[in-house]
């Protein structure tokens, strides 16, 4: 299948992109790695009149520490982040699930976050860690917390003229632990369900927790019911199991060719418990 005709602009700078999006935002798509956009164009699921290629512009490819966060430029590939020295274990264990060896060489972190695929791993992890995205337009710049990023499947709260320029990933401090868990039918395929957990412990008790699940709704979701089971509990297997059971009871899930809603709920519960167990282990240091 071939894409519908479109006009192509190779952007030379962020300002150039913002100008093009300011003028044609409603009909334009931003092309970064293209590992999600181009399949959708080939299948005619999207027909942008204008494709703005941002891959040649400088300044969006850095990974740098920034006041307790890791700032990841929009054009950093999933492969480059995977290879980054000292990368947080939860991020490191999430990336190999993101597409395949070859697609990770072009697929970008910013693209994955901005695309809003409801089963995607990076949006779920950004949400669970409490990260954010910096977006710019000719009207200015703003930081969008991950909680406010997703409004539906493939739909974000970004306006048509806004460009995601970097994402910020809070770095764990001593006493904090995070983990990611997933099951897919084949390595690299769309996940049946995935889960992430972020918690803080002191003196054998869990002081604060965030739990997220992916591929159970039209966007990644935080599950406060599961986080409440963890908060105030003693570190241990009972807390992990209670969080998993609470997640299973709280989420709805959906049926498709690969799994029933009931199976997804059950699986999400198992994965939440697995992530919580691992996060506690890491928090203990």
């Amino acid at each position: 299948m071939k894409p519908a005709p479109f006009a192509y602009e190779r952007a030379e700078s962020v300002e150039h992109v913002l100008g093009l999006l300011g003028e044609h935002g409603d009909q334009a798509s931003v092309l970064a790695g293209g590992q999600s956009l181009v399949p959708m164009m080939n299948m005619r699921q999207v027909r942008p009149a204008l494709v703005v290629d941002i891959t040649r512009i400088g300044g969006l490819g850095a990974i740098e520490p920034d006041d307790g966060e890791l700032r990841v430029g929009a054009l950093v590939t999933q492969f480059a982040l995977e290879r980054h020295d000292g990368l947080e274990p939860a991020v490191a264990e999430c990336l190999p699930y993101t597409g395949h060896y070859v697609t990770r060489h072009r697929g970008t972190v910013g693209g994955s976050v901005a695309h809003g695929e409801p089963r995607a791993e990076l949006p779920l992890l950004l949400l669970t860690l409490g990260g954010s995205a910096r977006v710019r337009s000719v009207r200015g710049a703003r930081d969008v917390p991950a909680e406010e990023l997703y409004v539906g499947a493939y739909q974000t709260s970004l306006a048509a003229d806004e460009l995601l320029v970097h994402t910020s990933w809070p770095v764990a401090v001593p006493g904090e632990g995070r983990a990611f868990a997933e099951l897919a039918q084949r390595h690299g395929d769309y996940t049946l369900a995935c889960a992430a957990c972020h918690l803080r412990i002191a003196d054998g008790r869990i002081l604060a927790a965030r739990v997220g699940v992916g591929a159970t709704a039209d966007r990644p979701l935080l599950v406060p019911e599961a986080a409440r089971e963890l908060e105030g509990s003693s570190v241990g297997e009972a807390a992990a199991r209670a969080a998993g059971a609470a997640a299973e009871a709280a989420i709805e899930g959906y049926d498709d060719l690969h799994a029933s809603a009931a199976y997804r709920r059950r699986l999400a519960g198992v994965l939440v418990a697995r992530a919580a167990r691992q996060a506690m282990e890491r928090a203990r240091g």
Partner: protein
Amino acid sequence: MAEDPVAIEVTVNGAARRDWVTPRLLLSDFLRHRLGLTGTHVGCEHGVCGACTVRVGGRPARACLMFAVQADGEEVQTVEGLAGEHGLTALQRALHEAHGLQCGFCTPGILIAAGDLLERRPNASRAEIEAMLSGQICRCTGYKAIVDAIERVAGA
């Protein structure tokens, strides 16, 4: 906004190629239909099967997920560019010897993707090889012989 053809210059397997392409022309179609390099196989045309994998700028890429216009100024390597004056590469020989192909449709993509893995990870483990191959669909072999062949080069 125009959909007019754009002039591009791409170095393909070491040779400079100039052409005019409409933006919607996929790199896979440019390689096959404009340059006649039919070793780049097209299976699914939406990034799933891996048969069209080539290298662009030293990195592996699905040629069906790139527009030819994006390759302007880049170096592209296809399966035709692997074997040199000394004949087949070690990986090509290993696939032949280990019976790592039957119909051969997936083989060009596997040669490029596995070659890239071995260049970055010369001692890649069997698990790493299998994870990489999950993105390269083969419907004949059951994969064991392909993994054996790649592992033979990794362990050499």
